[in-house]
């Protein structure tokens, strides 16, 4: 069920303009929070809303905030706008089309956690987004929502936009912090978690754009209201980016718990003519493939996990039967091999090897033992052996595909390619996040 | 008495058997391919020394009769492929027990035991052979 909580007005009016935004009730949350609520009250409302992180892991934001130790060190809020997951483009829409919502969310959240310096970290390729964000911040500062003594209160906040250098790894929160500090984007050893020692060794909260965009409506309407939307355990809405072999790819903001089938068949218009669904990668290239019989799974964190996959950032990639499971794996692994930060061994070496094997399979030079080799490599790289979860992500799809479509891999391993079938496939690139769009 | 005659008959039989000894060194008996005789240091197809001076042979040698000292290949005129070569390679043949462990150890197939075994001199130092003696001539 579509519910436009975050996307309200996008495509209809120019929300980049602070005037338009305010005219539609924008920045009401800032005023509500700063004028009428204590920081703790705001935090409590967010906790009550059971707002779960939209970045992928679904960790409740309120609880994350509660971990910050009060030991006199400065606190930081970092907005994770490093949306690099192939198939995911919902944050980009928010940053580019509704920047003030994010600014408002950042202000409310910063206020709630007692932070006076917030960083909006945007993916390097969001050149335009960063410019839009910068303009929005200027407007907000002019309007007095950002800066010293906001709305005349004691509360001061500086927000800066930090653009990355184009590394997938910087979507991982500790690598993001390293990147902000000017270092090589490598994940840090945890513990300590950012909440304890994050940016410049100080308590830091890292939340995704979409998560923070939910905060204004929680502040305005109360946590209980938000908690009542959608699934009880994963309340609120989720902007789902859907791409691939569907008739109407794009972003759809749905109430949590909406069945997958509704998204694919109603909102996205179903599979393109004359074809049938083969699989869905519900959270971009990093997720286990789902088959047509799983179409009734509700789109929320727990149900998706129970179905053996994950909701993640809800970047759904839909593939019809013309798609070669091996080719999809190869595109994915090429991406991971290219994007591996190189810090830890399994991800750095393993992804490259897997890519080489898959390239061979795809090119018809497969060997019969390759399927077993791939299975074993999935075990060597995945299963929590890497420093950060990206190592696991790198082989999640491959692992599921090796189970679901083993016959295709075996066929490739015996030198048979499915190039004829792929002739029909339109050109696409996984790496840019616009997968298989028909 | 019969036993004595039988014995005499037996030895008489051998009188006409072919001789077992060979008129060495005028003639030599054939040696099998695997014969573990004197060592050589081989060259590769390009004529470079196979030995890279890794010293594994010296480590494998149970009697420590091999001494290897390595150095960096001169730029432009390398002795061996790669960075490293043996500037000194000595075998004390008097100590050598011809066990073949060096040959087994060599990862480059450089040191090999050949069927050659004419080891003769009345000077001790002649048995301390170096690279010039060991290395096969360039083709």
């Amino acid at each position: 069920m579509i519910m436009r909580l975050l996307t309200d007005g996008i495509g209809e009016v120019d929300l980049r303009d602070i005037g338009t935004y305010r005219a539609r009730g924008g920045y009401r949350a800032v005023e509500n929070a700063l004028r009428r609520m204590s920081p703790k009250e705001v935090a409590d409302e967010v906790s009550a809303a059971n707002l779960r992180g939209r970045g992928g892991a679904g960790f409740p934001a309120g609880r994350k905030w509660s971990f910050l130790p009060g030991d006199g060190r400065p606190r930081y809020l970092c907005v994770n706008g490093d949306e690099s997951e192939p198939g995911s483009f919902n944050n980009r829409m928010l940053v580019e089309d509704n920047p003030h919502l994010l600014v408002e969310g950042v202000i409310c959240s910063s206020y709630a956690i007692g932070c006076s310096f917030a960083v909006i970290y945007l993916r390097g390729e969001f050149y335009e987004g960063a410019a839009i964000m910068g303009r929005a911040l200027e407007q907000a500062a002019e309007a007095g929502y950002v800066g010293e003594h906001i709305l005349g209160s004691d509360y001061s906040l500086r927000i800066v936009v930090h653009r990355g250098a184009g590394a997938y790894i910087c979507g991982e929160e500790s690598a993001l912090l390293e990147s902000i500090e000017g270092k090589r984007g490598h994940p840090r050893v945890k513990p300590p978690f950012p909440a304890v020692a994050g940016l410049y060794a100080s308590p830091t909260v890292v939340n995704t754009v979409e998560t923070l965009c939910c905060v204004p409506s929680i502040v305005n309407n109360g946590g209980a209201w938000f908690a009542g939307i959608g699934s009880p355990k994963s309340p609120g809405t989720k902007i789902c980016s859907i791409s691939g072999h569907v008739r109407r790819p794009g972003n759809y903001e749905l109430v949590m718990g909406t069945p997958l089938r509704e998204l694919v068949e109603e909102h996205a218009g179903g599979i393109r003519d004359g074809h049938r669904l083969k699989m869905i990668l519900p959270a971009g290239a990093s997720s286990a493939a789902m088959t047509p019989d799983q179409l009734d799974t509700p789109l929320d964190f727990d149900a998706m996990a129970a179905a053996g996959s994950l909701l993640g950032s809800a970047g759904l990639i839909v593939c019809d039967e013309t798609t070669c499971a091996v080719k999809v794996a190869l595109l994915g692994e090429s991406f991971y091999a290219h994007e591996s930060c190189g810090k830890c061994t399994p991800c750095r070496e393993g992804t490259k090897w897997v890519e080489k094997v898959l390239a061979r399979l795809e090119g018809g030079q497969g060997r019969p033992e390759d399927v077993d080799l791939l299975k074993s490599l999935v075990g060597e790289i995945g299963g929590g052996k890497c420093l950060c979860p990206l190592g696991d992500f790198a082989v999640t799809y491959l692992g599921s595909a090796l189970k679901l479509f083993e016959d295709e891999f075996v066929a490739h391993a015996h030198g048979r390619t499915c190039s004829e079938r792929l002739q029909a496939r339109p050109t696409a690139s996984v790496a840019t996040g616009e997968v298989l769009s028909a | 008495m019969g036993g004595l005659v039988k014995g005499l008959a037996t030895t008489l039989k051998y009188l006409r058997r072919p001789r077992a000894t060979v008129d060495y060194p005028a003639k030599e008996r054939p040696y099998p391919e695997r014969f573990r005789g004197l060592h050589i240091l081989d060259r590769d197809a390009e004529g470079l020394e196979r030995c890279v001076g890794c010293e594994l042979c010296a480590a494998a040698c149970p009697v420590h009769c091999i001494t290897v000292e390595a150095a960096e290949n001169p730029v432009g005129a390398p002795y061996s492929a790669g960075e490293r070569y043996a500037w000194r390679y000595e075998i004390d043949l008097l100590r050598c027990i011809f066990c073949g462990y060096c040959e087994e150890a060599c990862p480059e197939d450089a040191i090999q035991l050949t069927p050659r075994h004419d080891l003769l001199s009345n000077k001790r130092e002649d048995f301390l052979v170096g690279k010039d003696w060991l290395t096969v001539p360039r083709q």
Partner: protein
Amino acid sequence: MITLTIDGKTVSVEPGTLLVEAARAAGRDIPVYCYHPKLAPAGACRMCLVEIEKMPKLQTACTTPVSEGMAVHTTTARVKEAQHGVLELLLINHPLDCPICDKGGECDLQDFTLRYGPPSSRFLDGKIHRKKALDCPPFLVIDEERCILCQRCVRYEDEILHERNIVLIERGSHMTIGTEGRDDYGGYYSGNNTELCPVGALTSRPYRFKSRPWDLKMTPTICTQCSLHCNVRADVRHGDLMRLMIHDNPQVDGGWLCDRGRYAIGDAKAAERLSHPLVRGGEVSWDIALAEVQNALEAGPVAGLGGGRLTNEAAAAFKQICGTVDWRVGRQTYARVPGVAEATPSDLSEADVIVLVDTCPMEEAPILDLRIRHHKRVIDVGPVPGMRVGPAERVVCAPDGVAEALRGLDLSAAKHPVVVWNGRGELVEAIRALGAPVLMVHEVANARGAHDAGLETEGDILAACAEGKIHTLWLAGANPLRSYPADVRAALEKVPVLIVSDLYPTEVTELATIVLPVAGPFERAGTFTNLGGLTQTAAAVVAPRGLSDERIFQRLRPAAQPAKDLPARRSFQGGNLLVRPHLWSGGGNTRFDRTLEAARTALATVRVHPSQGLAAGTHVMINDVHEAVVAVDPGLHPAVVVVPDRTFAGLGADARLRAVVPA
């Protein structure tokens, strides 16, 4: 204490201990690549994965601190599988270099592969090839293909050195290490990288292809290149000293070595070493030479200079034989500040304020600097910056204004202040006034031992020589022509008998009546006392060339009365040309073997203040004789020009600097 079980074995360790260390305490070796006890955990190599009960995923032992009641398993099937996997992945792009790799035999990659790794390869798709045998002068050789990216070197640069000589380049499977944008290694501590490196990616040029570890006989001893006396392990093959390795002594070196200490080992094999005793230029036997010495010692007043090279035992014998002896042949006047507490290197770590008094520890005792450079508060007093790396509060003063500047300091708020001083100049009163313990950095290696042995004389021996009051002057490891503040050639020429005992021919052996070749470092055993007053034993690990100093003194009986009526020691005006120690000066040696001479910069550098108007790289002449290159240092006192010590012979107060006209 926290108690946990590792493979069923109960062990108690301090809170905060990492599992890998706890396992070591329990007698279990967990394989590690990126982990190093002196570096912060990185969790990068994933080699140390272990199974912890109640944790679903395997954990890295190098990043997980112990907790009470933890039950850890290091040999379960899952752990083995993980180790197997990591090794397989590390090996896929590793070149087939074992036979030519210097690390072969002491390589962690080899060892762990044999112990935990797969026996055969499944990888058949071509390896990634990178640059090999990249020279990184002066001492490193980088092999990018062999690197397993544990980042120990990079982290060492970051955490220990605060320098960035070796960095990570590129990303993912193309990531490698290198000197970004440079082709050499800029620092003084490159050698430690070769030991940190668990594989053969960083190897050292001097040790290149020299030996295999199983051929080495390893003996712990000490380095006597500077006055710190870092502990080393001397590795000897077939009687030749092949290399020095770290032999951690937390009190002294904290487990690091500087490049001079590590690589100045060629003395034993140096071709230019003195080989025979010489009497008036002719080669003689030891018996004759020592008889000549004996005669000379009995013929008139005797004096001796030197002590930096001498062991404590030899110094005592030297004093006994010559009577009038002094170790102060350079610019240093004091080995201890009278009436002030002595600090030790460990005190630096405890100190809250460190005052550098016109001293540059990085040049004078490099490993000491590693304790200072990341210190919170360092006050650096003097015309020349003493801190090269790391933050410091600079108190810039004129060369003769150091005492003045010191009087301006107030250390009363500090709980543990430590003053670091190199004993030069008339600063004793000012330093005593600071009221803090003093750590002396000595110009010569065993100054402290010589001082304790009483190698100090009121008055200036060389002045007495110039006045003809000394009949026999013995230089034991001293070259006054290079290190004495004034030109003393005339004084030396005036001495009827000049005895020089040294390793190498030098300017003074040219003048000497009797030259005695002596055993060098690692050739003779004895004790040395370091700058913190710690006496340690040096071992003889190679056969001596010549006799050791001690042996020479032993063969002579105690001799003549000390000469009397020496004039008071002259003090020298610094002018604006300051001679300062650098890494390759000082210690006990008068010079180095050729390999190291070559490793040094071809042209010496003089440092000038920007206000002098000289551009960096300008060639200048000193005294119209010595050529040097200008480096511009804004940290200097404007009126000061710094010349590296011991590079030029006979630089006195009247030395002049002349710039060659830039084109």
